[in-house]
């Protein structure tokens, strides 16, 4: 109960911050909206814009309206897109959930497997080479990897599409329909995100595994005659996962922000790109809507991490 109250308190505090932060950004949203047109628009139109977006109201009144609308499930009206915020962020969040979800799951599972193998087979030459590759990949910026994949697999080999999450020309019909089309567009962005995520997961798991390889409980398991595969995953890996769970909890909340450069390179219609544009355009309602979703994702990530600890470590369960 106290934990729920804690989350509720954080949520209320963050709502206030969420309202204030975009408005603390220097720059006038109307100027950002109309750009050079600002010079030639009529004063009447400018005034109409101010009224329409509530920018002529005092900040306190704007805040009351924001909370009131939020309580009624209304996230506001985007200045730039001239549409309800929920309608703008809805599709973007779905595409982001797909991109980030798939890459998160794949990079986590493959990263754990690779980390375990790198630790177990640490003396093999391939393992040393793989650690080197992981370090290189981890240090490369996402947009650079994405651009390289785009040039190789789309431009040179013609295997994948150049942009978007769906085929935009309806006449181009490929076998497999909608689902395969989505997967086809998802492949390169996911691969890019995985190449950014997987090495750090693998290296973290490897480092944790190295600490438990010779632990007494491993010796005890071997003495009981358990199989190597079971020892590896049920005993060693499970014990090595705690730092990873902490990291994954944090990453879960911010993964969509990490996806931003990938979304830009592949014009993938996700929420990271939307937030970036909203910040540039000083689109307060859209920034607020997206930050709110981000906050909820971080809170959800923390909650999942807590649940993950309990699952991975029976000692925490028994203490609770």
């Amino acid at each position: 109960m106290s934990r729920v109250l804690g989350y509720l308190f954080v949520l209320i505090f963050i709502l206030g911050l969420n309202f204030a932060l975009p408005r603390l950004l220097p720059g006038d949203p109307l100027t950002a909206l109309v750009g050079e047109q600002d010079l030639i628009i009529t004063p009447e139109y400018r005034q109409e814009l101010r009224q329409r977006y509530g920018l002529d109201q005092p900040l306190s009144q704007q805040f009351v309206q924001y909370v009131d609308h939020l309580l009624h499930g209304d996230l506001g009206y985007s200045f730039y897109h001239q549409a309800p915020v929920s309608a703008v962020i809805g599709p973007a969040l779905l595409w982001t959930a797909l991109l980030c979800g798939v890459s998160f799951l794949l990079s986590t599972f493959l990263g754990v497997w690779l980390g375990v193998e790198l630790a177990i087979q640490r003396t093999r030459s391939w393992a040393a080479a793989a650690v080197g590759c992981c370090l290189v990949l981890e240090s490369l910026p996402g947009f650079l990897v994405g651009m390289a994949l785009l040039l190789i697999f789309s431009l040179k080999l013609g295997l994948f599409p150049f942009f978007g999450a769906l085929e935009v020309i309806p006449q181009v019909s490929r076998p497999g329909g909608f689902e395969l089309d989505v997967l086809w567009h998802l492949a390169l962005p996911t691969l890019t995100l995985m190449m950014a995520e997987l090495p750090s997961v693998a290296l973290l798991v490897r480092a944790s595994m190295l600490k438990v390889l010779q632990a007494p409980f491993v010796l005890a398991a071997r003495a009981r005659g358990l199989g190597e595969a079971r020892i590896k995953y049920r005993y060693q890996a499970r014990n090595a996962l705690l730092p990873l769970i902490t990291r994954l909890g944090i990453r879960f909340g911010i993964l969509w922000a990490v996806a931003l450069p990938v979304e830009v390179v592949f014009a993938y219609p996700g929420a990271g790109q939307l937030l970036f544009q909203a910040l540039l355009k000083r689109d307060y309602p859209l920034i607020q809507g997206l930050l709110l979703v981000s906050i909820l994702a971080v809170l959800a990530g923390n909650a999942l991490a807590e649940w993950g600890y309990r699952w991975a470590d029976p000692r925490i369960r028994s203490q609770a």
Partner: protein
Amino acid sequence: MAKKILWLVPLVLILAGIGLYSAGGGTPPQQHYLIGDPQGDWGFPSPFAHNPRGPGYLRVSFLFDTLIWKDAKGFIPALAETWEYQESPPAYVFHLRPGVIWHDGKPLTAVDVAFTIDYLKKHPHPWVDIRPIQKVEVLDPHTVRLVLSQPYAPFLEEVAGTMFILPRHIWEQVQDPRRFHDARATIGSGPYKLAEYRREHGLYRFVAFDKYYQGKPVVPEISFVQVGNELVALKGKAVQAAAVPPEAVPELKAQGFTVVSLPHFWCLKLLFNHGKFPQQKLAFRQALAHALNLPELVAQTLRGHGQPGSPGLLPPDSPWYSAPQTTYPSDPAAAARLLASLGYQRTPKGWEQQGQILELELLSGPRYGREAEYLKKAFQKIGVNVRLRQVDHSILDQRVKTQQFDLALSGHGGLGGDPKIIYDMSLGPLAAEFLGGYQPSPKLAQLLRDQLHTLDQAERRRLVAQIQEQLAQELPNLVLYYPTWYLGHDGRIPWFFTKGGIAKGIPTYFNKIALLPKAASSSP
């Protein structure tokens, strides 16, 4: 060994599957034309819900027509077949084409034109200022007379050539046009109908309107779509047209693409804070102008892809351009004389007055870092110390508006259209905010007002030339350069550049009439 090879089997199968899948769709059908745009969404494509910037207007222009339009040479008939000017009282009479229908099949008449003007009075549009219209008279179903409060020279371009005509039977029920995102909000009289709009993909898919009064467009479907990298998408033939960087031009031409440059209707300026000393002094602004070598600036920062700025604002590509007599060639000695005339004394640390060394802050956006560096070096050569500060464009605009700056780099377009732009820039309601508090001299202000109400083209041209000369003398800001922008396309559509830019001066090639059978064949 065999076990290891077995690992390769699924990999080969996956790659083969992807290869087959990607080849499965074949090349996009010829009847479809895709234009790539990195920005993506420009708002719902209705006359009131589109984004107020040029690309938003452009998309709606495929769906809605105006009374008149422009081609490469100037005004051409659109919904109005002919038009005439009446002097007393000042009025324009437009004779509409008979038989024009809306996308839903209903006839378009003069009542729709009158309704549009009435509706715009209640719901202002960022692009159309209808205040000069005093009265609207529907003379018959195909003739409408717009009476003006006084002669207004930019009328054809600013109103008749920009105002989308709305179907009365749809919009008369709409109370909040900005939030009217119904499919009916896109029913216009333009050459295309909206087939699909996907905000998140920045996709605007238009299909040809079979019953368009100027003939069915030659391209059955045309779309704007968001792309991550325009050049890669164009080279991969995923889109058929996109803006391309200058360095890619030779390679694209070698690959068979058509690459065209746009006229120079956008400028980068050095802004001065006119509320501060010494920027408020003409001699100081002239000294900084003499410190710069604009052709060298273009060569170094744009690799030659641009034109040096004219102190009279309008670029040589503008039909209204007149080379000012007053120029500011690179002349450090002249700059030093001008600074000395302000009471400054040259010291090893720079110019000094009353124990204060002259040092100014130069604000620039992230895109103009190189230009800022060049200016800093050039000003240091004449002994003026400059601190660089890079901020994002919204912050820069805000600081210029509130006069919290010394010098700033900022740019704007619209230089190809009617010379009303000079009025807006110098005397418009927000001009002082944008020019660091500059107040034009009474002579310049009078010239600016006079040209707005002068209908005689030769006389107006003379006034606009005088305005450019006066601007060069007063130097409210310093135009640095006009960059060259390029469009690459597959050559299938004979895109041409609209005289002065589309509507009020949108600097793009994508004029809808290039897609029409008659207009396309007659275009240069």
